């Protein structure tokens, strides 16, 4: 049997795929990979279908020993890692796949000025699916690995190894943006003129209290002049809420499905992958955009991703 042996699990290492839909009404969020482009590229680089499960890690990643037949692996994102083989150590490059053999180790040291990275294998992890997805939601204990993060000393079986692994490499740099484009939210008018101005003109800092559920920001207080609570209602990924303390919270992939804080804005779909990569301490600035422009930008973003995939064929 081919398998990964987890020597060091890392800080927040989980199995993820495209996530699960049609469950918001019972309180189960999307989950799934935080950065979709890097997920799709990871699978493409090892010759998988683009929706296969991968290992997602944040900050410090796992140290893994591999046992079994030769297999292709790749790491995407902006990640510092090395491969420890019998006689040599290789400084790894992201977006370049590597063949590893029985006894080799993958040491994912850390993400670099970013949050999430991805490890894909040319094969299939042996995982339990729940509602059609392996994605692990550690808060609700839903998904593969009993809904938990990867643990030290755990073993993960791998089957269906791609029999004809090809060397693939992509010339791509995971650019960092600090300007996040936003469509006005349904409670935009709950905020004072000064508050609206602060929201679109001042910088905010990403707080340490950020995780897969939400990103908290710190900055000048955004004053609410109507009501700091609304009737609880549905939330979606990317919604920016302002609770009574005046600091924004952005809903991310594992967010609670219902909330009662006013919504000042929503991050556009095209900027979501870049948003989640902003690590604590990063500066962030919001820019207002119209719906039609957001739709065009998403098409362009999707085209860019498709172009990258087609370079690999």
């Amino acid at each position, binding site marked *: 049997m081919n398998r990964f042996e987890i020597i060091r699990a890392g800080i927040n290492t989980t199995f993820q795929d495209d996530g699960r839909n049609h469950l918001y*009404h019972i309180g189960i969020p999307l989950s799934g990979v935080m950065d979709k482009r890097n997920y799709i590229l990871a699978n493409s680089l090892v010759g998988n279908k683009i929706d296969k499960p991968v290992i997602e890690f944040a900050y410090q990643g796992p140290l893994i020993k591999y046992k079994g037949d030769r297999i292709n692996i790749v790491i995407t994102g902006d990640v510092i890692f090395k491969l420890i083989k019998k006689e040599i150590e290789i400084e790894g490059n992201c977006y370049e796949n590597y063949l590893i053999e029985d006894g080799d180790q993958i040491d994912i040291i850390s993400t670099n000025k970013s949050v999430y990275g991805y490890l894909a294998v040319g094969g299939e992890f042996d995982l339990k699916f729940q509602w059609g997805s392996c994605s692990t939601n550690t808060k609700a204990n839903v998904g593969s690995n009993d809904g938990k993060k990867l643990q030290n000393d755990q073993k993960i079986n791998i089957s269906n190894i791609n029999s004809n692994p090809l060397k693939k490499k992509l010339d791509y740099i995971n650019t960092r943006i600090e300007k996040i484009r936003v469509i006005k939210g349904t409670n935009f008018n709950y905020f004072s003129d000064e508050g609206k101005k602060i929201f679109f003109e001042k910088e905010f800092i990403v707080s340490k209290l950020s995780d897969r559920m939400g990103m908290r920001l710190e900055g000048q207080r955004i004053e609410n002049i109507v009501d700091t609570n609304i009737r*609880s*209602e549905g939330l979606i990924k990317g919604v920016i809420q302002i609770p009574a303390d005046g600091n924004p919270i952005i809903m991310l992939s594992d967010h609670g499905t219902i909330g009662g804080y006013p919504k000042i804005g*929503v991050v556009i779909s095209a900027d979501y992958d870049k948003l989640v990569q902003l690590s604590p301490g990063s500066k962030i600035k919001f820019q207002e955009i119209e719906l039609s422009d957001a739709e065009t930008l998403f098409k362009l973003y999707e085209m860019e991703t498709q172009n990258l995939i087609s370079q690999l064929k």
Partner: protein
Amino acid sequence: MIKNISNLGDAALYCDFGVDVNKETNSEVIKYFWSLKKKEVQGITNLTPSYNKLIISFDLKKTNFKEIKKKIEDLVINDTKSELSKKIQIPICCADEFSLDIKRLEEKLSMKRERIYENFFKKEYFCYMTGFIAGMPFLGDLDKTMRVNRLETPRVKVPKGSVGLTEQFANVYTFESPGGWNIIGNTPLEIFDSSKEESPNLISPGDTVIFKQISLSDYKNFNE
């Protein structure tokens, strides 16, 4: 009827059914919710009904705001509520070890505990929505004499099965979670079971719930 449809970001519709929160408004929301759910409209990825809103998320790769808005406006609504809604009895134990906020309720409501339990158990409740955490039902309406605000400082951990009160609503904590509702009792019944993929949640929007008071020994024997 939907009073107003707007966009929530670039991948969701925000359907507003009016400012009033009552059973009538919410029944309209739920009618739309079930009709859309049964119809399986291409591109829709999630439906989130709440007291007076319905949020419809969609896949921006497959469709867009304008297309889904047109589909919602043209939608023929069936009154599927009656066939899909059910009446559920939930056993609750109010022993001191479970009725965590009974003293606070006595103070805030200026009412003896016997009277609080009596008022609570005599009513039928309507499920407005489920969510926040998996399977948590938001039930209403509490008797007018029974309405209190959230705790000033929320609990870091509310035990699984706790039944809470806030304003006109009651809820059930389907698993241990932070929370600020006034805890009146605890149910031994599994309200959310993620191993049941088809119907993990016992209570759905539109259902009717009756609470039944049970003794501590019944509570302890419940799952045996």
